[in-house]
């Protein structure tokens, strides 16, 4: 199965879309194009010339060479790839959403604002926070918002000069330190203990005057609930630091506890994880950020909510209208031009509307039950180990370590992943979290069937058996995918690096005559 590049398709003069001619009267009145010569494009862009038929066929084939939740489980840990209910697809394609301009008069979009208002409220209730902004476009965007809120908080309290550090556990998502860093903070890492909890002694030893805040996800990337969260909260609050909750793993606790109840001040939510919006092969997502309100400055009457980014929808009792507010004075500002990523937000709204609080608790329960059932199937397979918190149940995900397998046979986590692909499964997140050697971070979510989970476990067993009997075979995987293993060295080598077709043609193709 090989599909040419769109540049290799087509034929001179073909087109995929008819652009109308300007009306005669329009042409006459305007006379002609008066753009100064020096800025007028002379050379047309080297775009392909393809018919509509070819476009449809090309992308149809590319989709058939892709794999999503619609094809089977995508058990990427922490990515929470659950089923994306098709009703939300239909609703989010409604012209009464698609055709609304972001600067349109608020009085003309009351229906949408009501949806967004309710969503803010629901998310606040789910997380136990007080106010939410739907502005951020993704989880990392929400994190960055949170970091900026922490920054602003300390700035308003005139202590930013000394509040220079953000504490992050070593099991955290990569976005956490990156966000903290984008926010101008120094990142201080704390290790996890054998039980999977943060090492409290280590934590205490780094917390101090310069602690601006702490970022954790709970349950952690190990799938373990941080049992000392209340104490951690006290310690951080004790130095006037703020606690940030990374919502990537919210799917493991909804209905049992809430970030707001645990002592967090700020939390983001991944609509495209917990609330069923699709991930689109990389995005769009939506990463609302919420705060537990608190007074920051009594004199100036500044509250934490005032710092939220973007716009919040509020209901004006007087006029009976929904409207957008933004505290221009204290808000951390805008992180993107307009309100938020409406399409995923509509998916999330629909998902929550149809499940309700009761249904969301079932989501959590089933996600956790699926994880622990999976563990029960794989825990005794030779070659895999489940480090940290040995006797503890996992929540939304589990991290297997293929270290024994690797040590015994040389077959690595990557080989295991390719062995899964070879059988038509998607692979778990590998080599993450970094604290687990040969990690296979696996999350099925509530929408996976028992049948698939069992098949997945069986395949892990098979892989183990093959690894111990014929490790070379394992290195060959995958054989059944549309291409064999990719040459990553070549892909990243400056001499062969080809990030676009034009570079490929110029550099790789012409220079090495390899095209």
């Amino acid at each position, binding site marked *: 199965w090989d599909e040419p590049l769109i540049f290799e398709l087509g034929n001179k003069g073909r087109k995929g879309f008819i*652009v109308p001619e300007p009306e005669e009267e329009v042409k006459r009145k305007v006379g002609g194009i008066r753009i100064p010569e020096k800025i007028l494009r002379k050379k047309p862009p080297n775009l392909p010339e393809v018919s509509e038929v070819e476009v449809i066929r090309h992308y149809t084939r590319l989709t058939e060479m892709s794999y999503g939740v619609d094809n089977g489980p995508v058990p990427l840990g922490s990515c929470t790839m659950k089923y994306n209910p098709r009703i939300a697809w239909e609703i989010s394609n409604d012209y009464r959403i698609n055709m609304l*301009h972001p600067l349109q008069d608020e009085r003309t979009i009351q229906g949408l604002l009501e949806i967004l208002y309710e969503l803010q409220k629901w998310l606040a209730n789910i997380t136990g926070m007080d106010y939410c902004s739907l502005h951020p476009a993704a989880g990392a965007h929400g994190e960055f918002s949170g970091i900026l809120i922490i920054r602003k908080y300390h700035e308003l309290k005139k202590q930013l000069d000394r509040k220079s550090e953000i504490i992050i556990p070593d099991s955290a998502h990569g976005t956490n330190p990156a966000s903290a860093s984008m926010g101008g903070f120094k990142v201080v890492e704390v290790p996890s203990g054998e039980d999977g909890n943060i090492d409290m002694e280590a934590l205490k030893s780094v917390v101090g005057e310069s602690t601006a805040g702490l970022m954790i996800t709970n349950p952690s990337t190990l799938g373990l609930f941080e049992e000392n969260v209340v104490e951690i909260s006290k310690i951080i609050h004790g130095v006037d630091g703020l606690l940030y909750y990374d919502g990537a793993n919210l799917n493991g606790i909804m209905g049992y506890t809430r970030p707001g109840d645990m002592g967090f001040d700020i939390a983001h939510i991944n609509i495209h994880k917990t609330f069923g919006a699709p991930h689109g092969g990389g995005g769009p997502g939506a990463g609302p950020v919420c705060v537990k309100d608190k007074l920051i400055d009594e004199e100036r009457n500044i509250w934490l909510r005032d710092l939220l980014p973007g716009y919040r929808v509020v209901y004006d009792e007087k006029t009976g209208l929904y409207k957008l507010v933004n505290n221009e004075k204290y808000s951390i500002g805008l992180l993107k031009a307009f309100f938020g990523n409406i399409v995923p937000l509509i998916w999330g709204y629909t998902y929550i509307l149809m499940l309700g609080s009761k249904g969301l608790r079932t989501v959590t329960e089933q996600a956790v039950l699926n994880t622990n059932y999976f563990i029960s199937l794989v825990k005794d397979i030779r070659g895999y180990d489940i480090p940290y918190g040995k006797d503890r149940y996992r929540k939304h995900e589990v991290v297997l370590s293929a270290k024994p397998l690797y040590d015994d046979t040389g077959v690595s986590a990557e080989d295991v992943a390719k062995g899964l692909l070879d059988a038509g499964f998607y692979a778990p997140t590998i080599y993450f979290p970094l604290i687990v050697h040969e990690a296979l971070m696996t999350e099925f979510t509530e929408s996976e069937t028992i049948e698939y989970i069992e098949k997945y476990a069986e395949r892990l067993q098979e892989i183990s058996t093959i690894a111990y009997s014929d490790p070379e075979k394992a290195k060959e995987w995958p054989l059944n995918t549309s291409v064999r293993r990719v040459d990553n060295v070549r892909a990243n080598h400056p001499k062969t690096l080809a990030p676009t077709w034009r570079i490929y043609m110029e550099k790789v193709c012409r220079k090495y005559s390899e095209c």
Partner: protein
Amino acid sequence: MDSHPWIPNSTREIREKMLEKIGVKNIDEFFNDIPRNIRISKEEWDNLEIGLKKPISEITARRIIEEKLSMNKVFVPLLFLGGGAYPHYVPSVIKYLISRGEFLTSYTPYQPEISQGILQALFEYQSLMAELLDMDVVNSSMYDWASALAEALLMSLRVKKNKKKILLPSNMNPIHKRVVNTYLSPHNVRIEYVNYNHDTGLIDLEDLKNKIDNDTAAVYVQSPNFFGYIEENAKEIGEIVHDIDSLFIMGIDPISLGLIKPPGELGADIAVGEGQPLGLGLNYGGPYLGIFATRMDMKLVRQMPGRIIGLTRSVDGSRAFTMILQTREQHIRRAKATSNICTNEALSAIAAAIYLALLGKSGIRKLAELIYYRSHYAQARLREIGLNTDIFKSDFFKEFPINFDNIGVKYRYVHEKLLENNIHGGLYIGNWFPELGETALYAFTEIHTKNDIDLLVEKLADIINELKR
């Protein structure tokens, strides 16, 4: 609870089977490690206002949402708002293709062997966009124009390590200014604004020369600028910028590049822009598509934010696509990453790629011409009814400001009157640019036919005439 369609294992039988195999009595046991004092009781949770508390049918949900959607008013095509998001036509082919589940429901392609289709689609987006921009390297998307710009500025601060100043044009999108402020606020950097020439609406070159200095890491130019006018001196600006070893960043409207010289040809080091016009709906502001491109210079490329897909080979020599230069990224580099971006706008990028493929070499030019003609026709007609449509003396592309000072009322009044006629007028910009008085920015695209424009002109003429009486 009953079994739920989205939760296949939520039947009594399966749950019991699973619990038994695990060896626990009930699901609550899994949550025993959550301290009592921070747990929420089932009763309390069930009574929280979250959805309708209990699961409901698709039938019921549809009715509830339908009721809300019916309270939205769609003005398109009689909507003349721009300001960074534009009503354009979205070909049905795009809606169809990006609905296909293999794209829609997939994740970032960490496992290239099973995801060649979406990798190729994203590589093609990068490549098509590179041709349009005449730039070498394009990442596989940012959130939107504004955040792409902010990241471009951060990137230039990394590339020009010891320089601490950024020059922005005062005629850039004022919303983007706010986003830039947010992104740059944690960093030790000065932002200065270059004035625009009040005669031409374009960047004042003299002011630029006065403000640029050795400490300047980057200079940004938006073309067409916020007023819709084409920065015809962009190349000259680029030379001024490069003379002092700064980076030249350009912000563009991709469709305008059918007619206007691309940033690559104008010497830009980084190009950013909004991909929304390329086949994405307005969607009240998102998801859009942040375009981000740079030259093939490893000093720049290594500092790029975002995902990049590369064309390479598989072990057996066949063509293959994969994510490249991941060592720049947060999941590898953590605190030292070039950006924290992870989830981007991949599906929007694919939509834009399909759009560019559909239009092709000649279509993009024809479309730009059509928009040029329609917007200039609107200008001519509105001029005839006595509106001040010629605030600036250079040439614009798809939008231009109209000053209403001479009609004796605030623009708000005009806006209300148009609304009464089911027309949504342009964007009031008097608050951002007080020097321009009662001014609104009107945008015209391929969706606005001559009849639509004539209708707008007619209604505006009625409003003006009524005011005269």
